[in-house]
């Protein structure tokens, strides 16, 4: 790993690394999601169709991996974009915590959205 890239990242080393880790999770998870949900089940999408998939632990793991990695990658990505437009010091801290709170809330909401299928 080239040290310079990590040290020069405005977003911080660990967030930089986590952005790469979630990228790999998303590439693999979205590959499964798109092919299984939108090609193999083309025209079959329904509440019952989703229930059938989420009865399998594999798809529960894939969906929660996509939910968590997706929310992190999206919000950290938006943060990196916004940091190019003049956030620093206090405004940078507030932006980071605001996005973090939004991410936690979105993960909670996403879990609630999946709950009826998980408990069926």
């Amino acid at each position, binding site marked *: 790993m080239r040290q310079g890239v990590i040290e020069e990242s405005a977003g911080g080393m660990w967030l930089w690394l986590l952005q790469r880790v979630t990228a790999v999770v998303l590439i693999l998870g979205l590959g499964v999601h798109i092919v299984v949900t939108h090609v193999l089940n083309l025209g079959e999408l329904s509440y019952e169709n989703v229930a059938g998939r989420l009865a399998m632990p594999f798809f529960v793991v894939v969906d929660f991996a996509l939910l968590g990695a997706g929310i992190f990658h999206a919000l950290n990505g938006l943060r990196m974009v916004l940091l190019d437009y003049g956030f620093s010091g206090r405004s940078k801290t507030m932006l980071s915590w605001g996005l973090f709170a939004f991410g936690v809330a979105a993960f909670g909401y*996403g879990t609630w959205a999946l709950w009826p299928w998980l408990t069926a």
Partner: protein
Amino acid sequence: MSQKHRETANVGAGLWKGAGMWAWLFHRVSGVALALYLFAHIWVISRGAATGAEGFNTMFETLESPLFIVLDLFLLAAVVYHALNGIRVLLFDLGVAIRRQKTLFWAVIAASVVIMAVFAYISLSFIASHGA
């Protein structure tokens, strides 16, 4: 910027020129679009919990209409480009193929076009067989 720094700089970011710039700009625009889509997607899926099976299925009849399938193709194009260029960026971070970044950009574009052609065929066949 010295020649040495230019060769090892985070390709695309700040180099406002050529293929690297377009790769970076497309990545950023598709990234923002996908971030916004993600939260719309979570809301759509939450209609199952909010309105139950019947409301969810009614909504999906609309989402499987030709208009939304075509919109899905634009969404997929953003996903495919962002994923493939993301792999290109990951390679650079590992120190691989930085000097061949332009070639890799065109490889990303070519692979995106091929993948999208396959999905366009699948989607348009579906629309045709279900009577638009």
